[in-house]
């Protein structure tokens, strides 16, 4: 907590309009008035004046924001001990040592701090603390009595998995970090808090494992976050866009997740996680392209099926970016590649269709996107009807009306479905698909390959916090490749962390730690 305060101080040091904040006056009323004026008498600002130790004239006051604090806490642990008669305050001399006495022996709240600067009191009050001011002291107590509404921890809708933990992050930073702590008992787990957003004052927290994560990486992340100079941070994506390596690239260079288990797995691989207060999404860096195809389920399935499903995912990605282009290329340029029967069938199906194949594919793709968007935006129950109407009725009708050929509908539908197999890369795949389909419409297979080459070059040139995005394919690290890319190796074979990420501390476990029953002559201890 001390460190956070220090950070807050540092943060404020950057802002000139508060740095000329004055100290507290000795007069209580004056202080309260200036607090009120500073907060423009907001209706949710509550100032409760009272007398210490049952004395008549008011010598103290608590200041807090209604809704941010737990009222019971304030009443029981602050007001009660101070106001009751038996509290021997009156015989304490006025001023700081009286306040000290209160802090030390009366207030029964865990987190408490002394402040003498005016603006700091304000900040504390605004961040859900209760300020205790007493007459005749140039200092005040900032008492943490947080008690605002929060969502309960449950499975995130975006990342549903079959086996494995069901909990997901919520909007409150502390809860999220607590979830992470519960997963990682290692004392090396470090949480560094920064505050960004000159007006939102959003708390951003970098989490990493000290002896695993690359110090340079952490330094880099901190520098980039401190470089942020915007007035408001409302979501993790904002932070991502403000600190990522290739802002203009349409490939993501940072990972995101809503699951504590995923975050802890990534931390264990030597990555760093960035929590942003007010959003359940947690960013992870550095990011590898391959992570788009890794799902937490891979690691809960047995290794064979895990590897198989991963290859299905690669295939699905291939389909989602290539299928329309391949369809166009085959039907418009390379008919000789189709089996004769299939060619005849397709010729029959597209007979008399007014538009060329490219136009059909692109148009239908656009229509599909519109339907999807509509299905998402409007309320759930209607949404499903919309998607059904769109998909079935429109699809069927266009074919029967002879506007598009049946194969095109199949192609577009298949593409759409397989593009949702890898949710984290769905945006990229859409852009790529569009571009490559157009290229294919002009130049067939040549166009497709040229497009893929251009994308490959772009990917190869991308880095995420100094790590090549295409690693471990290029530059190639066979160990990492065989552990978690080509196959999902069984846990007892994942000896090392990815070389590209955690190079200074790679060993995860003893080299050959294959489980099995004890062979005779060897006892449980020495194996």
């Amino acid at each position, binding site marked *: 907590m001390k460190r956070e305060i220090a950070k807050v101080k540092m943060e404020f040091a950057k802002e000139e309009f508060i740095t000329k904040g004055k100290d507290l006056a000795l007069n209580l009323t004056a202080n309260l008035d200036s607090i009120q004026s500073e907060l423009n008498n907001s209706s949710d600002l509550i100032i409760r004046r009272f007398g210490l130790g049952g004395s008549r004239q008011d010598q103290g006051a608590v200041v807090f924001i209604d809704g941010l604090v737990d009222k019971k806490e304030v009443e029981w642990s602050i007001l009660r001990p101070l106001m009751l008669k038996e509290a021997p305050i009156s015989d304490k001399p006025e001023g700081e040592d009286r306040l000290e006495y209160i802090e030390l022996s009366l207030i029964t709240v865990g987190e408490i701090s002394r402040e003498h600067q005016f603006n700091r009191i304000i900040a504390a009050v605004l961040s859900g603390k209760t300020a205790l001011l007493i007459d005749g002291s140039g200092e005040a107590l900032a008492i943490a009595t947080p008690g605002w509404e929060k969502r309960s921890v449950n499975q995130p809708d975006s990342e549903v998995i079959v086996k494995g933990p069901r909990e997901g992050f919520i909007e409150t930073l502390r809860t999220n970090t607590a979830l992470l702590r519960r997963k990682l008992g290692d004392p090396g787990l470090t949480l560094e808090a920064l505050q960004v957003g000159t007006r939102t004052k959003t708390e951003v927290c970098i989490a990493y494992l000290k002896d695993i994560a690359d110090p340079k990486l952490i330094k880099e992340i901190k520098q980039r976050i401190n470089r942020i100079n915007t007035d408001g941070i409302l979501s993790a994506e904002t932070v991502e866009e403000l600190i990522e390596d290739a802002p203009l690239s349409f490939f993501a260079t940072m990972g995101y997740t809503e699951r504590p288990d995923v975050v802890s797995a990534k931390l264990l691989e030597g990555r760093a996680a960035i929590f942003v207060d007010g959003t359940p999404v947690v960013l992870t860096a550095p990011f590898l392209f391959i992570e788009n195809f890794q799902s937490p389920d891979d690691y809960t399935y047995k290794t064979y099926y895990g590897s198989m499903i991963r290859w299905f995912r690669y295939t699905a990605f291939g389909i989602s970016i290539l299928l329309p282009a391949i369809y166009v290329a085959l039907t418009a*340029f*390379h008919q*000789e*590649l*189709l*089996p004769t029967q299939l060619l005849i069938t397709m010729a029959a199906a597209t007979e008399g269709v007014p538009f060329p194949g490219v136009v059909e594919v692109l148009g239908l793709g656009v229509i599909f996107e519109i339907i999807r968007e509509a299905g998402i935006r409007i309320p759930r129950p209607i949404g499903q009807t919309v998607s059904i109407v769109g998909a079935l009725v429109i699809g069927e009708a266009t074919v029967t009306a002879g506007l598009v050929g049946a194969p095109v509908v199949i192609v577009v539908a298949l593409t759409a479905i397989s593009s949702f197999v890898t949710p984290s890369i769905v945006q990229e795949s859409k852009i790529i698909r569009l571009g490559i389909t157009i290229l294919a419409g002009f*130049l*067939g*297979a*040549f166009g497709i*390959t*040229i497009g893929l*080459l*251009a994308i*490959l*070059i*772009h990917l*190869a*040139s991308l880095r995420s916090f100094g790590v*090549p995005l*295409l690693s471990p*394919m*290029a*530059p*190639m690290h066979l160990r990492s490749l065989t552990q978690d890319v080509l196959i999902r190796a069984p846990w007892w074979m994942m000896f090392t962390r990815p070389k590209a990420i955690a190079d200074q501390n790679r060993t995860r476990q003893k080299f050959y730690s294959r489980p099995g029953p004890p062979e005779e002559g060897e006892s449980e201890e020495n194996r």
Partner: protein
Amino acid sequence: MSYLEQGKISGSQLVILMVGFLLGSSVVIFPGQAARQDAWIAIIIGAVEGGIFALIFTTLARRFPGKTMVEILETVFSPYLGKLIAVIFVWYAFHDGSFVIRNFTDFFTTTVMIETPNIVFAVLLTIVAALAVGNGLEVITRCSLVLVPLTVLFLLVTFLAQLSQVEWTNFLPVFEIPVWQLLKISHSAAVFPFGETVFFLMVFPFLNRTKECRRKTVIGVLLGALLINIIAWGGIGVLGPTRALFTYPAYEVVKMFNLPFINTRFEIIVVINFLTMGFLKLAVLYYVTVLGLGQIFHLRSLRPLIIPIGILMIILSIINFSGITENFEFNTTSNLIYSTFFQLVIPLITLIVAMFRRLPRRERGC
């Protein structure tokens, strides 16, 4: 260490890049076709000869660690003469690049897309290569790391699929053509593609351990020879005598049969192989040209060179020949001497002069 390229590549990466470079045009035009059923022997001999070239110019590279060919030339000969020779060397890279583009466009306009004007292929390929070159050596290498394994996979798959069609009698009789002619043909195989590895003299200094350039180059040449031989075996075994008819045997081979079960043709795989590998080769040559020119003129950045060189390369590729027959004619006759001059003579002379002048001296300028 040149300030124009900060990238570092490892030895194994160099090998893979080199294999891609060697496969470049050979994916469709495997060398030594003139030797009919002895083509594979010609390729092996050619690879050995190319390996000898490699030994010579890697000796040169190891003598001047951290120096590209241009810098070596400028130190060995006087700056002016050195510059002159460097210009010739760079011209060779440039010319070779235009060759790649030309083969490429010819292939596409004769096989897959006849109606399309070949300038389109040239322009698009060059743009992609320019992208790679603009991103520097590391990115080219990474692309090769992804592309070469794929291509090798495709090659092996096609080869295995062909095995059912191979008629072993097509390999007989062995050593039919007289030895002298065989040697001539294998020399043509040596200068194209194996000897072309001489261009890696511009790349060696960026190895993170320059000393191992010799071993890696030899390995690369041998691997490349093996893969090209696989293509050649397919061509000989399947096509037999008719191979002499075809312009692109490797393409015809795959045309010959259907993929079992799904009964579809997949000659497009050859096209894609050629496209990717041709891209790699062009990218390397393009890069060598740009880097060399930049070092000759002591430029501070390579970016301004990329676009003009690209345009010029396309233009040269068009005015290289008036027809594809001239292309093959040149490859089989005068190229033998033309390329040998750059691949063997220049490095050898440089090495000898360097030894004579006891270069490099202790004070290492660069």
